């Protein structure tokens, strides 16, 4: 009997061809949990095992397939893979060649997003303390978005309506596809070389998770993180959150909202100015009114005081006047009395009243004489009350 002895190479080759000839095994879907995961950084090939509770199979995903993965496979991750089985002849390893892989249970994009978010969050990219405030009165705003579509029109219309004072610098970019991330990063870099840009609005209109994917780029996040100008992120709809939204200085739920956050509303300002105008005028009017009232009050008080003083003085004058009259009257009465007395005295001294009592006044040569001065035959004049007698002295008798 002839025994066929094979070489190892022959055996391996045979088994390999067996495996590869089976149609079922040339492309199928396999579900399992990743373990023993090794990422050969230099080659870019991924080596791991897929297992379930009862069995394990070695797996490999080559670089050109792995490059398309959005997420990073890890030990313990449950995945569904499309691929084929074969034998690696050199070491007889029976393995599963993976062409595509998606995480089981959660979408691959969601998983990738969570992985990037966790990584950047740990690195401090989302810290509030790093975020810059948005200028209130921007002179120039750079808008990085697609130049077609509703997003850019909304931003231009709203900023134009609210705050035409602000100049808009348009930076058209691809917002999806391969060119998106390089365009976005390039725009951010160039905008920082332009002087006087106060704020950047970066974003795009709504779309699927795939459409928005460029805004989850780590490199874009780095560019935004290190950007010196405040960035407002406005990607998709209100419920869409991208890495760009987390790392930006401010997130707007939509591009329109971004425009409203970036500039003030001049209509509100007209109201505000009008309001302040009114307040100013009111305050001044009140102050003037109050000052006027004060003056009036002081005026009234002054008049009262003066009029009191006047009546006071008038009363004093009257009082003095009365006193004056009284004392004058007294004086008058006094004088009258004295006059009366003096007049009486005068009357008694009136020589005529002496004559009336029967006495006479004798004179010689118009001079009054006494008996002693007379001699016989002197001519003397005797004055009586009712006339005079011219006499000659007969004899003189002297009293002893």
């Amino acid at each position, binding site marked *: 009997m002839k025994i066929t002895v094979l070489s190892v190479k022959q055996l391996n080759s045979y088994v390999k061809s067996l495996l590869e000839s089976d149609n079922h095994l040339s492309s199928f879907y396999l579900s399992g949990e990743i373990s023993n995961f090794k990422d050969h950084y230099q080659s870019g090939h991924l080596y791991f095992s897929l297992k379930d509770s009862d069995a394990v199979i070695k797996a490999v995903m080559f670089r050109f397939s792995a490059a398309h993965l959005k997420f990073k496979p890890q030990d313990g991750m449950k995945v569904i893979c499309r691929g084929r089985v074969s034998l690696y002849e050199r070491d007889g390893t029976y393995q599963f060649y993976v062409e595509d892989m998606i995480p089981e249970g959660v979408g691959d994009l969601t998983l990738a997003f969570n992985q990037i978010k966790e990584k950047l969050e740990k690195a401090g990219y989302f810290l509030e303390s790093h975020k810059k405030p948005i200028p*209130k*009165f*921007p*002179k120039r705003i*750079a808008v990085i978005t697609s130049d077609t579509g509703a997003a850019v029109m909304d931003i*231009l219309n709203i*900023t*134009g309506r609210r*705050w*035409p*004072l*602000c*100049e*808009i*610098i*348009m*930076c*058209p970019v691809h917002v999806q596809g391969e060119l998106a991330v390089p365009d976005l990063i390039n*725009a951010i870099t*160039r*905008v920082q*070389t*332009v*002087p*006087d840009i106060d704020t950047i609005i970066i974003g795009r209109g709504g779309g699927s998770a795939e459409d928005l994917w460029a805004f989850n780029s780590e490199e874009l996040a780095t560019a935004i993180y290190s950007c010196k100008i405040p960035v407002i992120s406005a990607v998709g709809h209100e419920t869409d959150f991208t890495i760009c939204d987390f790392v930006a200085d401010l997130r707007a739920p939509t591009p329109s909202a971004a425009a409203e956050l970036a500039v003030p509303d*001049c209509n509100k*300002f*007209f109201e505000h*100015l009008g309001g*302040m*105008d009114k*307040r*100013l*005028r009111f*305050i*001044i009017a009140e*102050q*003037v009114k109050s*000052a006027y009232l004060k003056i009036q009050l002081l005026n009234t008080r002054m008049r009262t005081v003066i009029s009191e003083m006047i009546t006071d003085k008038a009363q004093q004058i009257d009082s003095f006047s009365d006193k004056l009259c009284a004392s004058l009257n007294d004086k008058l009465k006094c004088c009258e009395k004295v006059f009366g007395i003096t007049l009486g005295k005068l009357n008694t001294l009136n020589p005529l009243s002496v004559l009336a009592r029967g006495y006479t006044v004798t004179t010689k040569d118009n001079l009054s004489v006494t008996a002693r001065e007379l001699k016989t035959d002197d001519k003397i004049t005797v004055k009586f009350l009712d006339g005079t007698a011219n006499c000659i002295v007969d004899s003189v008798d002297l009293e002893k």
Partner: protein
Amino acid sequence: MQNKSFEENINRLEEIVKILEQGETSLDDSIALFEEGVKLSGECNKTLEGAKQKITMLTDVENGEK
């Protein structure tokens, strides 16, 4: 550009209103502040009313500034 002075004007105007509302200024000072406030308010109004939005392409700005 005018905007820097716009912001300064608005801030000064709000400051003036605050000072006056505290009511501790003399009548002379109040009137002086009031006049300043009215002037600022007028300027702000004029700036806003006369403004027209300007849109420039990034490439044009770069070429123009270089």
